[in-house]
């Protein structure tokens, strides 16, 4: 009964001070002694979240706790009777027991550094992995990479790396892929904040969420924080009636300015289909003041994308050159859709005839006649902005593209 009281008061104390490792460890030990093994492991796991090297917590979780406690009384015979577990065994045991509480200790795929809060990917891509898109690469080099790689020149020309980079363009044209590749060029981790996460900032505790994102990035520097669908986060003030977006924007500005934390080695990239909807406060100098237009894939990029989406499929006599010519103005997502539609057509045909056949040019041409470019509505709005909302020339490049395509 007394031990129950003690445990109850300890639990209350831990609830009041959740980051007090010693207190939590003490609770875990008492729970283990009281035979409440499952709860003891949970508490020990929480200790490990805060102090991954804590030996007592490691032993508690791996089930060696009893042996440690009894070691003084134990004779050598009993100790040797239990086969010793090597470090790998302990770690594997930990992994299994804590899989739903603590981050995994090893991962087979991309390295997950901060699984408890946000997925942080190790750099794997380079800009060279992005097929075609030479103009975009050149713009990225000029706007971001060249100043970064040449600190002396940067100083000489008075350029600052402070602030973020905003990638904008029609949907499905590879902004996220390019951001990942850019993170690779910087040898930086990549912390993507997806649209759904951004949306949740409207309904949850956005300020705290944003702070946690930037803290995770600071812990894993060099790190790129990639805010997808930035327009959703930084909606224009005039469109914010009845929404809770203001606090989110202020917190983002606060984090970008590095008021609380040191942002050295933290790069902030944003992506949006609608830069005109992004709050002006986010576009001022020192914030997302460098913008790069990511247009629909050019011919080499379309060729690479088509080949990628056809690579593991049974194909014969595919003239990608012809397809590339016919898909000017199609997004990467549209090209993937064309390949899928062609595959479906061949599959259906095979099912009907009872004989499997290859995907051939007629399938792709039929798919092409079915799938229209999805960027039409985007082009219309982009045209409005480029023609009538371009007083400072920020959309000159977009306007030139639209005029080249005879949209404007």
């Amino acid at each position, binding site marked *: 009964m007394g031990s129950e009281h003690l445990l109850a008061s300890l639990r209350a104390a831990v609830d009041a001070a959740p980051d007090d490792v010693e207190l939590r460890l003490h609770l875990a030990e008492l729970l283990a002694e009281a035979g409440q093994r499952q709860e003891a492991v949970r508490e020990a796991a929480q200790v490990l979240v805060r102090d991954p090297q804590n030996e007592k917590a490691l032993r508690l979780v791996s089930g060696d706790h009893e042996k440690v406690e009894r070691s003084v009384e134990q004779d050598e015979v009993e100790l040797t009777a239990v086969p010793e577990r090597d470090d790998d065994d302990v770690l594997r045991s930990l992994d299994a027991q804590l899989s739903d509480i603590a981050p995994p200790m090893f991962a087979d795929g991309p390295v997950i550094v901060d699984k408890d809060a946000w997925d942080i990917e190790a750099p794997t891509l380079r800009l060279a992995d992005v097929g075609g898109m030479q103009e975009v690469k050149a713009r990225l080099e000029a706007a971001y990479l060249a100043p970064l790689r040449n600190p002396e020149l940067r100083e000489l020309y008075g350029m600052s790396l402070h602030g973020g980079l905003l990638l904008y363009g029609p949907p499905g044209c590879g902004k996220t892929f390019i951001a990942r590749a850019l993170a690779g060029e910087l040898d930086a981790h990549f912390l993507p904040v997806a649209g759904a996460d951004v949306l949740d900032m409207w309904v949850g505790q956005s300020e705290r969420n944003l702070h946690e994102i930037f803290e995770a990035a600071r812990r894993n520097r060099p790190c790129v924080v990639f805010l997808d669908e930035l327009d959703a986060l930084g909606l224009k003030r005039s469109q914010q009636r009845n929404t809770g977006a203001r606090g989110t924007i202020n917190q983002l500005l606060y984090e970008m300015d590095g008021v609380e934390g040191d942002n050295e080695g933290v790069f902030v990239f944003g992506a949006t289909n609608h830069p005109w909807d992004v709050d002006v406060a986010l576009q001022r100098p020192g914030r997302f003041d460098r913008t790069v237009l990511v247009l629909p894939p050019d011919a080499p990029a379309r060729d690479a994308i088509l080949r990628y989406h056809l690579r593991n499929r049974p194909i014969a006599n595919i003239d990608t050159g012809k397809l590339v010519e016919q898909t000017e103005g199609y997004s990467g997502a549209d090209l993937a859709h064309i390949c899928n539609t062609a595959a479906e057509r061949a599959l259906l045909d095979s099912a009907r005839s009872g004989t499997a056949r290859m995907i051939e040019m007629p399938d792709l041409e039929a798919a092409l006649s079915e799938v229209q470019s999805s960027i039409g509505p985007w082009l219309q709005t982009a045209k409005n902005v480029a023609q*009538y909302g371009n007083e400072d020339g920020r959309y000159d490049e977009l306007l030139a593209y639209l005029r080249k395509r005879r949209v404007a």
Partner: protein
Amino acid sequence: MSGDTTQEVQLQLERAQALVALGRSEEAVSMLHQLIASEPEIAPAWCLLAQAQGGVGDAQAALAAAERATALAPENDWPHRLRSAALQQLGDLDGAIAAAREAVAADPDNWRTHRRLAICMIVAKRDAGDALQAAERAVALAPNEPSAHHTLGAAHEMRGNHDEADRCFRQALALDPQYSPAHDALAHRQLAASGFGRAGNLAAAATGFRDAVRADPRADDSATNVERVLQVFIARLSYLIFLIVWLGSRIRGDTLGARIAPLLLLAVPAAFAVRFLSRLAPDLRKQTAYVAFHGKLAASSIAQTVAVALLILGAVAPGEGRSIGLGLAVLSSLCARLLLPRRRSLLSRIRRARA
């Protein structure tokens, strides 16, 4: 529902509301369908679905969702307002007005209900007095809401109180300089005041439509209207040039006065153009040049430029050269006129983007 379920439903509703606010209606529709499949008796979910369906342009689906919401919460004004909006979109203006009246009855202290009623009446072009009264009530209940002032302006406009309408539109802009429909409405007022020689009003109309697009890049009607106003300017200028070229060609004689007169006449279209262009921002001036020399007006503009050049050459040319130059100028100017779309048809095509 358990406490956890209630909380989850609330979260889903907030997410859907955020999507609707962001204009991501398709995503909202998909999310709400999932929510409604598991919780079919939640009126706000049906209301949001109606709003989202309206956003994707499916008025029939919006009406069905609004009717379901009305059945679940008949005492609430929101479902009635949504039903009214959907009926209006479907062209059933009597039904829209009736639903709006039900919304007012459900919550007479809510400005949105009065505004909805006013909008229905304005669109139906009937009961101007009632529309004005409803819009005034909306403004009284929400004096800081730009959309209420805009609706009041539209109600005044329907009754022919143009000065009052202007004042209301300006008040809406004072409350929110980015309120696109008010820019658009004022631009229409300027256009209505722009007679043939009123280059200043025409420039103000172009600027107003441009401001409407700038405030809301999705205001496609306003964007189309900027271009059409620029085309109207080009058409009027072209007409003036044709008139001047024709008059210039009629001047006979070889005196200094007879030679200078056609050149002096050119000052009329020049003054018109200068007055218009000087009132435009540089980006709109550039756009005017682009509209004039690209696309469907290009041939006409080039022909008219050639006509002016020929008029000048003809005026100073000796002997036979003069009559050949002036004759060709008239011919070129006539071609330019014939290549232009009709000015009246341009003006009539300038559409009104409604709130």
